[in-house]
């Protein structure tokens, strides 16, 4: 008799997906997207967050955390580089939105590609000199970079220093969908769309050459280089794509929040996003999504216990990491699955 591990959600999920044929897969995918899209309407159920507005919580922290964790996961999970300054790219995106939004007539969607481009440029500029470093050394340099970006906006005139930038315009309405402060459903749908785009991008890259190169770099960088993988190039790509996602999240965040200040971009954010990745399952897209959702949502769900919530939050982290050191849904240790999947593709 085969003993099944009912706790292994990852393998059960993978099994269902593996067995499904194409129409079934499309049905599952569309079904899940619709379910997620309907989440803002569940505000009256047990999901409701006391004190904080439920649909605002879904946008930030939950949605934003998921988006940023997916971006950071490209760097940390896929190619194994520890980045402790990820918030810098978020800040660059946010400040691009704030400055261009208040000083020019451009709207959020026009600024989005500019913000992403700036974040990517920062990624390349930081990456070229520093990605020769590995492990702890890289972590320290990125940590420094995160702090530099924060200190620059804190001490510069153009960024209005610690006062921050106010009156950032909201995104223009998309047809009948109106962006409103008091009802953030549309923001949520925009975040979900961005998350889906990011997941699509990561999945595409993972099954092809860049994914293999990252995987090889993560597991044994010297062997990778000696087998002909241009490691620096792919590390910079990984870093830059992660930066792009962070920048995109920043643009949307500024446009949603209408006000940004340097204190929103501290090291804490970097650490929290990294926690989401590690908590959910480093390297696994779905693990990261689940991890970021829980870590984003939990503190607001238990806000009624006021100060004790941080204690509960900490205990949950410690307990989970003790019982599941690889995260809630660990990286898939595939044996047969990959051959089948790629034969279908």
């Amino acid at each position, binding site marked *: 008799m085969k003993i099944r591990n009912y706790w292994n959600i990852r393998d059960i999920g993978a099994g269902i997906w593996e067995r499904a044929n194409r129409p079934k897969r499309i049905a599952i995918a569309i079904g899940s997207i619709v379910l997620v899209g309907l989440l803002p309407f569940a505000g009256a159920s047990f999901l409701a967050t006391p004190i904080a507005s439920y649909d605002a919580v879904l946008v930030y922290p939950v949605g934003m955390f998921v988006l940023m964790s997916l971006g950071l996961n490209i760097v940390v999970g896929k190619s194994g580089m520890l980045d402790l300054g990820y918030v810098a790219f978020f800040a660059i995106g946010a400040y691009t939105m704030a400055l261009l939004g208040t000083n020019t007539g451009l709207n959020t969607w026009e600024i989005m590609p500019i913000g992403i481009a700036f974040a990517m440029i920062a990624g390349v500029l930081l990456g070229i000199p520093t990605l020769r470093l590995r492990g702890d050394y890289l972590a320290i340099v990125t940590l420094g970079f995160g702090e530099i970006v924060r200190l620059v906006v804190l001490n510069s005139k153009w960024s209005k220093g610690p006062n921050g930038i106010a009156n950032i315009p909201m995104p223009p309405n998309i047809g009948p969908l109106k962006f409103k402060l008091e009802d953030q459903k549309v923001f949520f749908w925009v975040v979900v769309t961005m998350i889906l785009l990011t997941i699509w991008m990561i999945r595409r890259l993972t099954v*092809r*050459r860049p994914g*293999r190169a990252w*995987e090889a770099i993560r597991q044994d960088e010297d062997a990778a280089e000696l*087998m*002909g*993988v241009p490691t620096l190039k792919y590390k910079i790509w990984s870093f830059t794509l992660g930066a792009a996602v962070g920048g995109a999240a920043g643009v949307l965040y500024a446009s949603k929040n209408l006000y940004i200040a340097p204190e929103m971009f501290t090291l804490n954010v970097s650490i929290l996003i990294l926690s989401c990745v590690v908590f959910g399952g480093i390297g696994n897209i779905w693990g990261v999504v689940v991890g970021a959702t829980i870590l984003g949502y939990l503190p607001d769900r238990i806000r009624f216990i006021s100060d004790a919530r941080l204690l509960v939050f900490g205990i949950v982290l410690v307990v989970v990491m003790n019982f599941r050191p690889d995260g809630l849904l660990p*990286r898939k240790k595939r044996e047969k699955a990959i051959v089948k999947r790629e034969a279908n593709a």
Partner: protein
Amino acid sequence: MTSNGKVLLKLDNVTMKFGGVTALNEVNIEVKEGEILALIGPNGAGKTTVFNVITGVYRQTSGNVIFDGTSLGKQKRFQVTALGIARTFQNIRLWGDMTALENVITATDVHKKSGLVGALFGTPRARREETENRERAMEILRFIGIDEYSDRLARNLPYGVQRRLEIARALGTSPKLLLLDEPAAGFNPAEKVELAATIKKVRDAGYTVLLIEHDMSLIMGISDRVVVLDFGTKIADDIPSVVQNDPRVIEAYLGVPADAS
């Protein structure tokens, strides 16, 4: 003997110093196209250093490495691989979390053009190259005789298969010159015989092989020429039967008899 005498790789007076330690001292080695050249010597003789200099892990202190008409002095490691040199490692360094097939496919990427953008948008070239890589990698696994393990994770493979997979992965880069660093380490006699046959097969398929090995019977059985290193200096370079009886080689391996000096 399939060697046509053309020199594929030339180490020209290569010296490698680590601080005060001279690991290689003015070493001259020529590898001819189509031959199996064995590199032997006692522990610490500098054999693996030779590999590391060739593949760009170390930069020689002085001297030149010329491969197929190109000087390897300024090339980055992955460019050396792209030029046609591939190696295996003394202690197995496969990518454990990848399947055997993926390990080889990753190596086949070296000669492909499509990159990140192609992968993202699934351009025809990227798709075609993926298929080519997969077929080529499968072919190599069959050639080495480990295709039944293709979808197993590398780190779950038996030791002997891992060693062979290292060779397969190196072949994935379509090298002109294959460097094998102690491919028979930890093998039993039967496995060694099998490996010798594989190495010969590889040579007969048109690859040139430079081999580091400790097992004398294996070396004498398959190599066309043997180079002996001792304390970073080349002390012999000839066909196996001559090297075997060279007094300096015997001395290096066994020491000088007490009454002879």
